[in-house]
């Protein structure tokens, strides 16, 4: 098999897999939600455009931030796997070709959404009188040039360099693109365009002519690609469980005081589960996000019915997303080797869930205090009822059912 064939296979497998999961992510409910959100945002944007002042500073700052975010986001899709560092090492020359293709591919993809964002920002630029409508192509090309510069930088950063050189290059790229974008937004779209053109040409020559022969840094190739796929799968994992969610584990020493509570030291199961939950960002990050989003939504609403519905919805989401905790015990051989581990693992999960859901209920109640005591009490009462039903009614049945079929 040629190295080209190998990557072709990988590519088709990668997209087949991604497509399979995207079907679940883009389910009917979520698509409708997205459409509604997009519609609402579009409407708000349109209203805002009508009222925007020519001299206003805020829209310029926001525009700059959005553009920077668009330009500096994204990675090169390389599809490199850890084992490549061993098996493909003798084929670096052939791999160069693959990497150039990856770069072209990723640049095309990134340019596509950059163009879309570019078109969306055109009315704002016209609104603040930085641009004539005829010149919008100049603005969009500027954005694409910056995006390409960033893409080439990513390509360049995957090769082996002196630490100092690569740091200097990074600073230069950041400084120049910041200057260029600020020029476009605050001074002139034309000057900004020429800065972008110059930057992309010079950097292109530097990377592809001057430093062409440098070797690949396989460790960073592997690490970047794993981080990239991890990011994609961590989003997908919010909708459906995939086998690709490698956990990110952080020590989080400042949270060590939590483990002093005796409830987390009763038996090996809860000992492990509590620490695992906090240090594994897949779980704790999800929990934190849902608590925060729910809390903010409740804070901005004054109606007790809406507040209660939102809080129950978020409690359900939290509880539902934590059901995979059951798998954690299955995957760990030790819980089959320990003596006394015929104890009820479902019981342990229930215990942790009650603590977590109670915690989020407290946050939601505090967030609803501003809407009055009655609202808060109603929310609290409904939440407690829900937690009881979910943890002691639904959860054991659901976990036992899973047990039977797995």
């Amino acid at each position, binding site marked *: 098999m040629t190295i080209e064939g190998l990557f072709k296979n990988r590519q088709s497998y990668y997209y087949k897999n991604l497509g399979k999961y995207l079907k679940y992510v883009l389910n009917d409910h979520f698509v409708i939600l997205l459409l509604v959100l997009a519609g609402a945002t579009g409407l708000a944007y349109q209203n805002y455009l009508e009222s925007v002042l020519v001299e206003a500073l805020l829209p310029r700052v926001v525009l700059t931030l959005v553009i920077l975010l668009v330009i500096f986001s994204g990675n090169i899709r390389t599809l490199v796997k850890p084992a490549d560092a061993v098996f493909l090492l003798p084929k670096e020359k052939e791999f160069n070709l693959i990497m150039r293709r990856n770069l072209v591919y990723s640049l095309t993809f990134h340019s596509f959404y950059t163009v879309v964002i570019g078109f969306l920002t055109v009315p704002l630029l016209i609104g603040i009188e930085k641009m004539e409508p005829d010149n919008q192509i100049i603005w969009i090309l500027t954005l694409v040039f910056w995006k390409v510069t960033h893409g080439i930088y990513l390509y360049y950063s995957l090769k082996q360099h002196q630490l100092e050189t690569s740091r200097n290059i990074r600073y230069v790229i950041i400084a120049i693109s910041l200057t260029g974008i600020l020029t476009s937004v605050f001074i002139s779209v034309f000057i900004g365009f020429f800065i972008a053109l110059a930057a992309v040409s010079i950097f292109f020559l530097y990377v592809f002519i001057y430093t062409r022969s440098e070797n690949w840094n396989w460790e960073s190739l592997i690490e970047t690609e794993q981080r990239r796929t991890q990011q994609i799968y961590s989003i997908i994992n919010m909708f459906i469980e995939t086998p690709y969610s490698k*956990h990110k*584990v952080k*020590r989080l*020493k400042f949270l060590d005081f939590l483990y002093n509570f005796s409830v987390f*030291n009763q*038996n*090996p199961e809860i*000992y*492990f589960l509590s*620490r*695992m939950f906090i*240090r*594994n960002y897949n779980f704790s990050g999800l929990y934190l996000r849902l608590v925060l989003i729910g809390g903010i939504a409740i804070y901005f609403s004054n109606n007790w019915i809406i507040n209660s519905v939102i809080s129950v919805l978020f409690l359900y989401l939290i509880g539902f997303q934590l059901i995979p905790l059951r798998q954690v015990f299955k995957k*760990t*051989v*030790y819980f*089959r*080797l*320990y*003596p*006394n*581990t*015929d104890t009820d693992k479902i019981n342990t999960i229930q215990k942790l869930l009650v603590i977590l859901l109670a915690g989020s209920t407290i946050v939601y109640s505090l967030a609803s205090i501003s809407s009055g005591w009655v609202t808060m009490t109603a929310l609290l009462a409904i939440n407690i009822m829900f937690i009881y039903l979910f943890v002691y009614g639904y959860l054991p049945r659901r976990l036992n059912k899973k047990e039977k079929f797995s």
Partner: protein
Amino acid sequence: MSLKIENVTGGYSRMPVLKNISFDLNDGELIGLIGLNGAGKSTTIKHVIGLMEPFEGQIKLDGKTLKDNPSLYRKKIGFIPETPLLYDELTLKEHIEITAMAYDVDISVAMDRAIPLLEKFRLTDRLEWFPSDFSKGMKQKVMIVCAFIIEPSLYIIDEPFLGLDPIAIRDLIQMMEQKKREGASILMSTHVLASAERICDRFVIIDNGEIYAKGTLTELRKEFGMPEASLDEMYTQLADREGFLK
């Protein structure tokens, strides 16, 4: 402690990997389980620790099977797997604590037992680290510490020397000999025949899921008519002559 394996047949699917295996392990005895890759050493170990159930035959620890009293059976075994198995989310100190908790050892007692071992293995200043980030040898040391702090009466050690530095190998051998003197039994599988020859009391040679031979070094020499031969010489010649695993 005595381990009795009686006519055990077992495997992963219906095709048995182990065929009618029997051997005993007495108090204060160290048995070396010897065989090529895929001969059935690890499968035998999995049956003993209870991760797999035999299709036929029985495994008895002090006269009791796993089913008779699971928690008593398991408490008697300290297991060091071939590949270190660690919790990604727990620190070294927490590995010691959770092991103590699972085997009903008081946490302070477990720490007292662990500290000299940690010092021996130069791990004391890494108590707050995640062992899953350690090197292979250091992970193996963590596994050794966790098995030794529960002071089991039966140690089951799968390929203990892989990845360990020479000092750690020497220390581990000393620790095993110490435990033997205290009356514990050890079942060890290994490919490092020179070390095995030095420390094992008896050997069980497994080939293709069957016991090919068992006994002390002298008994094996006599059985195969190779007086003076080392275990290594004897085993490689045997493997060639008999066409093991074919």
